[in-house]
């Protein structure tokens, strides 16, 4: 059954892959199933069980998973994409309905639930999740009672660089900033994400990622304005391709994208010494969903250990499935990669987005000044 073969295909959490054909390094093959007591998703083939309208970050699902899911459940998947949590919120708040499944980051789960834009998860429909989830990913701070969300995967926001084009071996945010302002001016991009970019500067300055102290934010703003003339672009969707093509040599971005670049060219992803952001993206079901049942089936399906390994090997983001269940179905090079599964000491330095409404308003103003600089 070639369904059990898993390939490494460079992908990314939030980027479109424009014509870059998969590098396809086959790593794991045909390993026994259910050996570790994993409950795999039901494979009952139903004729036509309707449609799942999945609103997600671009390129955040292994393309193989869609047909496999349809085969297993009879449910066809319709797709739409958003570029940021904020854009997702704007869409739902603006009245868009009909999406069955979305993947907001933790802080956005909490905002969306406060805005009454989510409907409760029915855990009785999720036997594979209950059996396979790593307990660390239950009762997360943004959804203490697991009412509205189920973790999809997790990752970090740091930076990546081409090790063949950057001879230095930067380890900190300060080095990132100095190299950008110096030798590699014009060859660096940052995310088009307000909390991520401002937060990185705050952490570099020794402040909290989530601060809403105006004078600390002002110092971060000064750093950004000084950095601005040296940036090639502000983008969340193009930097992976630009790094692979060598048009830029360094980028502030997400770990999965860094590993996708490293799968094709000599590159490294850095979790800076000062710290940075740690995020969990979670499945959630928005109000107005036409087929919440299909959404539950999707979540349950991808929590099957094998199915989950297929996803992790594609996105390069950390899996919320118990590591013991992944051992054997997921390549050691992925399971043991500290950029995907950082050590507890590294994780301890990272912070999740918990920015207040006031902090958000202050950041918005800084972002306008940054773009105006």
């Amino acid at each position, binding site marked *: 059954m070639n369904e059990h073969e898993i390939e490494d295909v460079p992908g990314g959490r939030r980027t479109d892959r424009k014509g870059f054909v998969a590098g396809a390094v086959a790593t794991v093959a045909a390993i026994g199933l259910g050996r570790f007591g994993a409950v795999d998703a039901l494979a009952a083939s139903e004729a036509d069980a309707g449609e799942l309208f999945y609103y997600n970050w671009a390129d955040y699902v292994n393309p193989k998973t869609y047909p496999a899911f349809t085969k297993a459940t009879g449910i066809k998947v319709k797709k739409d994409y958003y570029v940021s949590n904020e854009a997702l919120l704007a869409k739902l708040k603006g009245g868009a309905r009909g999406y069955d499944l979305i993947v907001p980051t933790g802080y956005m789960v909490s905002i969306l639930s406060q805005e009454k834009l989510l409907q409760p998860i029915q855990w009785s429909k999720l036997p594979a999740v209950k059996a396979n989830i790593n307990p660390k990913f239950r009762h997360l701070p943004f959804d203490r009672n697991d009412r509205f969300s189920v973790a999809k995967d997790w990752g970090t926001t740091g930076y990546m660089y081409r090790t063949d084009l950057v001879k230095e071996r930067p380890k900190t945010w300060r080095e990132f900033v100095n190299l950008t302002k110096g030798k590699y001016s014009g060859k660096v991009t940052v995310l088009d994400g307000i909390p991520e970019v401002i937060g990185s500067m705050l952490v570099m300055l020794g402040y909290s990622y989530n601060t809403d102290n105006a004078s600390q934010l002002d110092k971060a703003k000064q750093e950004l304005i000084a950095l601005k003339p040296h940036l090639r672009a502000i983008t969340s969707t193009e930097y992976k391709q630009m790094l692979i093509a060598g048009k830029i040599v360094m980028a502030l971005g997400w770990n999965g994208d860094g590993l996708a670049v490293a799968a094709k060219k000599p590159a490294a992803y850095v979790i800076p010494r000062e710290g940075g952001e740690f995020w969990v993206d979670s499945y959630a079901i928005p109000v107005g969903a036409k087929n919440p049942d299909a959404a539950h089936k999707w979540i349950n399906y991808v929590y099957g250990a094998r199915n989950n390994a297929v996803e992790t090997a594609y996105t390069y983001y950390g899996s919320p499935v118990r590591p013991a269940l992944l051992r054997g179905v997921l390549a050691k090079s992925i399971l043991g990669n500290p950029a995907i599964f950082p050590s507890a000491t590294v994780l301890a330095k990272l912070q999740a987005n918990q920015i207040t409404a006031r902090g958000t308003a202050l950041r918005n103003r800084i972002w*306008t000044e940054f773009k105006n600089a």
Partner: protein
Amino acid sequence: MSTPGGRRGHGGPRYPAWLALPALGWYAAFFLAPLGFVAAYSFAELSGFVGVDFAWNLENYRYLWDPVYRDIFVRTLGLASFGTAATLLAGFPFAYWLARYSRRRTLLLLLVIVPFWTSFLIRAYAWLIILDPSFPLFRALDVDLLYTTTAIYIGVVYNYLPLMVLPLYAALERIDWSLVEAAQDLGDGPLRAFRRVTLPLALPGVVAGSLLVFIPLTGEYLIPAILGGNKTAYTGTLIAQEFSEAHDWPLGSAIAMVVIGSMTVVLVAFSRIAARGEVANG
């Protein structure tokens, strides 16, 4: 005393006014009502992450009275003015030649319109390939324009040129060239005849083309976002940021209202010029 019946005087056919109702209804429902919403939001207040408290205060407008926003408005006006001037300079000679001398008008006009058959989004991404430093032309010149202001300006001229050429052509095509010949026969040199006869007759086309280019450019979003690497703020990108990333609909609405207000002023000024042109033409 004013003449009853308006400037066209008596005697014209009287059209039943209800013929205007469908268009009127459409504009009321899909233009005036949304505009009303935007106006109402612009006086409201952001509460929490996405909440809106409707009020009647000028706080958002006062907030915009700030060097940062002034810079962005000035930059946008610069882009719109450049785009208008550049498309006029590039488009006028072409439209003139097309209207007066060309024998393949239909084909050439079709070619002017052909780009519209493809979504602008796709054409903008195509420009990313052309502007890439590894593209043969730019590699030979050893210049790298990708994600620069120059790239934005190139994209603007490319995208808006047809909007300038078509009204210019429409105006020039109606010109009775024997008038120009008469002026020359009566002693005007070619330049003088152009200035005194051709240009005034073409003025309505110049005004229409300039409006078609200038007004949308004040809200241009795609070109700075795609060709400019999304790193320079214009009013269009700023409004998008307020609505989509910052969820500050009240502030975004206030910016939109300021843009709409300034455009109304420009529109009135332009139509005055056009009216004077028409009077001059008799």
